[in-house]
């Protein structure tokens, strides 16, 4: 008798829990905007009482799960071309802009002291420069004492949108680099780590290492990051201001579902490795999509401050308007 009561209670509790869960919007995908979505959703919940769960599993996983309709929306750092969106019946629009920094671990060289030219970055990641005192690096850093130590490059072990955006930048410098979520790196010494935190940990642990990570990880862990030469030949420190300057050159249009990779922008004060991240919605789920766009509308109008506080760059107002029109034309607003 007792056992039966207990079973009934357990059943009741678990079903009621699942109904509560079913009310919340579910999203997963890109880990790059993960910290921001977390802040946005909790603030949104505090204001409106609507719950949204976003799991930062990775861009590839996001695309996979939205294709299988396992979630209500997905995040991806790699935009999908319109043709692919039509084939898989998805809408797409950007949500925020972030940036990638080159963080390093060299004794005696502090944050922002190392200057890396485009040629030097090419040489480091293609394996042409194997030591820190290579002439191609030292020539822009006359004041620094770079050691004669081998360079270890820290990259991602998993497929990643961050890698996609970083290789896009490398490809702009030297077309020999393949744009890929997980390329075969040609550098002499490569160590891979899982996710941004894995790469950050490797950079911190390995002397004379350099690696690409998302800006918020550099801030959180206090890793030193390099000034990078932009398209106009200027060395730019990674700061929220220089990201904003870079972001103004991004051009988006609803005609191709905002497909654009915005890395390596023009402008003398632009930081060169900026990247947008995107939201994917299933075309047929109109009601759920309206809930997602309501949340994004809230984020666009009230979430900018949270975004800049975390080191992201809000989309330009003109782009936001463009996206609002896109929602209206698809009748999901």
């Amino acid at each position, binding site marked *: 008798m007792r056992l039966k009561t207990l079973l009934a209670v357990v059943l009741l509790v678990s079903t009621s829990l699942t109904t509560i869960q079913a009310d919340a919007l579910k999203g997963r995908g890109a880990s790059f905007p993960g910290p921001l979505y977390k802040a946005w959703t909790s603030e949104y919940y505090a204001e409106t009482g609507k719950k949204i769960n976003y799991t930062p599993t990775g861009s590839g996983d996001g695309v996979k799960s939205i294709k299988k309709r396992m979630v209500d929306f997905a995040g991806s750092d790699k935009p999908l071309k319109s043709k692919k969106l039509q084939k898989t019946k998805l809408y797409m629009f950007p949500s925020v802009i972030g940036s990638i920094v080159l963080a390093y671990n060299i004794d005696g060289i502090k944050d922002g002291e190392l200057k890396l030219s485009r040629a030097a970055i090419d040489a480091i990641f293609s394996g042409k420069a194997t030591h820190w005192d290579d002439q191609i690096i030292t020539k822009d850093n006359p004041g620094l004492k770079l050691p004669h130590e081998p360079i270890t490059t820290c990259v991602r072990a*998993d497929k990643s949108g961050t890698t996609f955006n970083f290789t896009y930048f490398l490809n702009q410098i030297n077309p020999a680099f393949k744009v890929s979520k997980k390329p*075969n790196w040609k550098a002499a010494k490569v160590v*891979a780590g899982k996710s941004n935190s894995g790469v950050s940990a490797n950079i911190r642990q390995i002397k004379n290492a350099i690696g690409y990570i998302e800006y918020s990880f550099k801030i959180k862990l206090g890793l030193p990051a390099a000034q990078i030469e932009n398209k106009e030949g200027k060395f730019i420190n990674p700061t929220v201001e220089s990201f904003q300057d870079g972001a103004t050159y991004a051009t988006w249009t609803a005609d191709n579902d905002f497909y654009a990779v915005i890395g390596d922008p023009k402008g003398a004060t632009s930081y060169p490795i900026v990247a947008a991240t995107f939201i994917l919605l299933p075309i047929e789920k109109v009601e759920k999509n309206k809930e997602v766009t309501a949340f994004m509308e809230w984020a666009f109008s009230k979430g900018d401050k949270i975004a800049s506080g975390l080191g992201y760059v809000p989309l330009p107002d003109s782009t936001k308007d463009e996206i609002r029109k896109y929602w209206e034309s698809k009748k999901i607003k």
Partner: protein
Amino acid sequence: MGGQFFRHFSFFSATLSFFLLVGIFAILFTYAQEALAEFGIDFLSADTWEADEDDEGGVFGGYIPIIGTLLSTFIAMVIAVPLAMGIAIFLTEVASENLAKPVSIAIELLAAIPSIIYGMWGLFYFAPIVQSIFGGNGVGLLTAGIVLAIMIIPFMAAITRDAMNTTPNILKESAYAMGATKFEVIKDVIMPYSKAGIIGSIILALGRALGETMAVAFLIGSVMSTVKHITDPTTSIPVLLANNFAEAQDLEMSAMYYLALILFVVSFIIISMAKFYFLGRKSAVK
């Protein structure tokens, strides 16, 4: 009523584990079909792992992770076997009761530490030491092998100690009475008597080292490249699976099931060998 229920329940539990085993094998085999058909046996010797731009196909080969798994396990065994034997002999034959007890407890506690803790400790504390002695990046095959050894030593030592403890005192005393030294007793009486148990412990530890994921993922470097030097970073089967599972699709996913199948079969063979030895031992005692 209650007895009937309990009988069904225990029968169900017992058969469930068997069906799970068969079910897992069947699933691995089914999902690996696409890669099996595409790459066949050449999968074992191909050393590229690269997905296409749109993730729908690619070229996948298991050579590097398979070699990485074998080499890291080999390094671990080379270090762990002599040390674990030494600990077991010390505990059973050399140490006094007052010392043997706390050391035994410490070893059993070490065996219970979750592997991720070994991974973190290895990356933050041990990797710089390896780097300063052997050069390289700090993370790589050697670091992974040494930390694996540290992980399996307690396990191996505890089982070997139990096996050695089963040597009847009368045998040892007879040997001493004939004028044998302590070393001779260990070499000629204890070792042969507990041989099966010792081999069993080594094989079980081998199985654990082969499948270890978390600690190795922290330490091996996770790079798809063949090892030229012992400190080079490389990858292993469980590490590759853990790193790529979330993102892989279609053919790549199937290739990973193929790798998992290889690991499953190898581990299965190893564990059954160990069990066979253990069971043989027990019936001999009776």
